[in-house]
């Protein structure tokens, strides 16, 4: 199975100290929301992805909700609410 290409942006990127990573789809992870929970469970700075935080997600460069399905190989991005314009 192809790896996920995970990206982090803005304040979330800074909180995690990481702009992205490649990751095999973890066991039991079938959705964007489950991936987020999996990452938040790493502890310490990764709590920035925790349930109470205002984090948005994009799957293959489209904004999605937590139920968006993952099969492996996708580009998944996590970021705070956008503030452009």
């Amino acid at each position, binding site marked *: 199975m192809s790896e996920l290409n995970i990206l982090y942006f803005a304040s979330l990127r800074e909180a995690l100290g990481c702009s992205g990573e490649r990751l095999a789809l973890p066991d039991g992870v079938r959705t964007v929301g489950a991936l987020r929970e999996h990452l938040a469970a790493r502890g310490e700075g990764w709590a920035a992805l925790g349930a109470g935080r205002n984090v948005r997600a994009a799957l293959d460069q489209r904004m999605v909700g937590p139920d968006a399905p993952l099969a492996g190989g996708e580009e998944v991005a996590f970021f705070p609410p*956008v*503030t*452009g*314009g």
Partner: protein
Amino acid sequence: MSVSVQREDFDAGAEIAALSAGNAGVGAVASFVGLVRDAGHDQRVEAMTLEHYPGMTERALAEIVVEAEGRWRLLGTRVIHRHGRLLPGERIVFVGVASAHRGDAFAACEFIMDYLKTRAPFWKREETPEGARWVDARESDDEAAARWNAN
């Protein structure tokens, strides 16, 4: 439709002129220019850096324009959003919409800005005398975007 995400400044007058050039069916061009303000919610802003999500930004802007084209009768649209470090007074964003009549042009221009503010992956980091900070998203922007669903 034309969407650009770029570091460089833009020429609003040239963009407005291009939206009607060669099409005398255009009777209305509504446009918007967003600029860096020298004040945030409570502090002086010395500079601002716009981070974005390359690839998704262009795609998100194009999808917003396509949605506007489905809602109103438009004869041309142009969106330019800058990224990188900008000083107060510098231009950030241009949205221009051409139509036969002004109602469609105004509505589509404001719609594109409202959706851009909530859906296009840009993030602002302000430099203030007390250090740099990420700008918080505004609830009023969510409300502005949500009102287009009521129609």
